[in-house]
C-alpha cells in the first residue's frame, strides 16, 4: 500500500477539502498521512520521510499558495527526497487568473502536477494511479 502525505500549506485553515481528500484517498486504497491545516513545508517533508511516502499532495485554498510553495522542491532535495512526487491543488493563487500561466509558475517551482480551482480530488485519482504505477 503506497503512502500519500496530505495537508494544507501555510497560514491556510480550509479544513473541509482536506477531510474529504483523506476520506477519498483512503477509500481508494492508499495509506493516507494527513498533517492537516496550517502546515509548513517542513511538516510535509518530515512526514514524507517518516512514512516513506511516494507522494506529497499539497492543498492551498486561501490564495497565498504561490508564496507558501516557493522553494519546496529545493527543501525536498536537501532532505534527500528530491525525487518525490509533488502535487498541488485547490485555489492556489489569489483571484481568477489565467491558469496556463499559473500552472507554469508552479511547474517551474518543481511541482509534478498542478490543478485548477474546482478540481475535486476524485478527478485526480487517475493521475495518482498512473504516477504511482498501478
Amino acid at each position, binding site marked *: 500500500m503506497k503512502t500519500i502525505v496530505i495537508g494544507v500549506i501555510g497560514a*491556510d*485553515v480550509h479544513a473541509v477539502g482536506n477531510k474529504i481528500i483523506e476520506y477519498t484517498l483512503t477509500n481508494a486504497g492508499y495509506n493516507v498521512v494527513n498533517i492537516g491545516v*496550517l502546515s509548513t513545508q517542513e511538516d510535509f517533508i518530515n512526514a514524507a520521510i517518516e512514512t516513506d511516502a511516494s507522494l506529497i499532495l499539497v492543498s492551498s485554498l486561501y*490564495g497565498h499558495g504561490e508564496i507558501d510553495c516557493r522553494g519546496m522542491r529545493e527543501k525536498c532535495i536537501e532532505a534527500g527526497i528530491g525525487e518525490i512526487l509533488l502535487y498541488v491543488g485547490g485555489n492556489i493563487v489569489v*483571484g481568477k487568473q489565467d491558469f496556463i500561466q499559473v500552472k507554469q509558475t508552479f511547474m517551474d517551482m518543481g511541482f509534478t502536477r498542478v490543478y485548477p480551482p474546482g478540481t475535486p480530488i476524485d478527478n485526480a485519482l487517475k493521475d495518482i494511479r498512473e504516477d504511482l504505477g498501478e
Partner: protein
Amino acid sequence: MDLRNKRIPEDEFLRIRKEVLNSWVTGNDPQLDLEEAVKYLKSVPEHKNFAIKLNKAKERGLTLIQPRAGVPVLESHIKLLQYLQESGADFLPSTIDSYTRQNRYVEAQKGLEESVSRNRALLNGFPAVNHGVTNCKQVLEAVDVPIEARHGTPDARLLSEIIHAAGWTSNEGGGISYNIPYAKSVPLEVSIKNWQYCDRLVGYYEERGIRINREPFGPLTGTLVPPSISNTVMIIEALLAAEQGVKNITVGYGMGGNLVQDVAAINSLYDQTIEYLNKFGYTGMEISTVFHQWMGGFPQDEAEALALISYSSTVAALSKATKLISKSPHESVGIPTMEANGLGVKASKFIVNMLKDQNMAESYALKEEIAQIKKEVHCLMDVIYKAGDGDWAVGIVSAFRQGLIDVPFAPSKCNAGKILPARDNDGMIRILEFGNLGFTDEIKEFHHKKIEQRAKLENREISFQLTVDDVYSVSKGKLIGRPQV
C-alpha cells in the same frame, strides 16, 4: 490560565494595552492615544456609524447589503470599496489578509511590498495592522458608509485597536468563532481572553458615548453547521461581549439552504439572544442579525453562482435579517475582481428590494422548526452553563474540550470533531453522528429519525458518505446530495 466571564478592570485593560501596542511598530502611532481616538471617533458622522445605521435599518425592517472585500495595496483597496459602494453596498468591509490573522506581520509586510512592486495582489486581504491608523483613516474618509474589519483572527487585539482608532465602527469576530474555524492550535482560553480585550475596548468607547458594533462570526466553518450549534456559539459570544460593555451586537448565521430552516434559524437566533441577555441581566442591548449567503463550496458556473447569490438573498430577505453578507460569481475560483464583487452586490440588492414589503407567512412548518432549534439551543446552553459552573467562558471551554459542543469540519484541536451532519429529506441540516454532543436522547432521536428517513428513501446505509455527498451537492447544483439515478 485564569479565564472568567468578568469585565476586565480598566487598569488591567490599560496595562495589557501597552503590551498590545508594542507588538508591532504601527502600534506606537500617537493616534492610538485613547483620548485622540475618542475625539476622532466622535467626529465620524452618523451615517458612517455602523451601529446607528444598523439600528435604523432594523427599525424600518430593511435588509442591508455588505460584501466581503480586501486587497493589499491602499489605493486599490480604496478604489475597490468605492466601486462596491456605487454598486449599492450599504456597509463596507475591509477583509484582512491571512498572515495578519495569524499575527504574522513580517510576512504580511513582505506580501504587501511585493504586491506593490509586482503590481499584483499577493495577499488575500488588506493588512490593516501593517497599514496603521493613518491609512485606515484614509480608507474610511474615502467612502460614505460605515466600515467593518472582517477577518478570522484569534488574537485581534492590535488589529482592533488600529481599526477603531481609525473610525471603523464595527469589528467581526469572537473568541470562539474566530478560533474554532480559523486556527489549529490556539487554545480556546487564549482566544476568548483576547476577544474579551477586543470587547473591552469597545466597552471603553461605549462608556465615552461612542457606538461601536460587534459581530460574532455565525457561519463558523460554513459547512453543514446545524443551526442550534452556531446559534449557541452566537449567544455565548453575545453574553461574553455584553459582559465587557458592548451594547450593539449583530449575531450571525450562515445559510443552510432549506428556506424554512434558515428563516427559523434567524428568528430563533434573534429571540434567544435577547432572551439570554435579559436573563443574565444585560440591559440596554441593541441586537440585530446578519445572514451570510451560502458559505460552502460554490458552483463554478457564474450564472449558477449568481442564482445561488439571488436565492440566498431571497431567504435572507424573508428572514428579515438586518444585514446580508453577499458573495460574488467568482466565489468558487478566487478572490473576486472588483466588477465580479459588484455583480454580487447588485443582484443581492435587487432581491432584497423586491422582497422589502413581503413577509414569510407564518406556517406550521416554520413554527415547528423554530421550536426545534430553540429546544436544542436551550439544551446546549444548559449543558454549557453546568460545565462552567455558571460561568459562560469557563463553560464553553470545557464544553468544547468534552465535545459537548462540537463544530463539523473545524480545524481546531480544541474542537472534538466527532459530529457528522447531513441533510434530511427536506434539505434541512441534521446530525447523523453525535460524538459527545450535549443533546438529550429525545433530540438525538429526532435527528436520527430524520436522517433515517432520508437514507431509506435513497435506499442506502447511514454513513459518512451522506455527509460527503452533502458537502459537494450545492456546488453541483443540488441541495441534497442524493445518489444519481
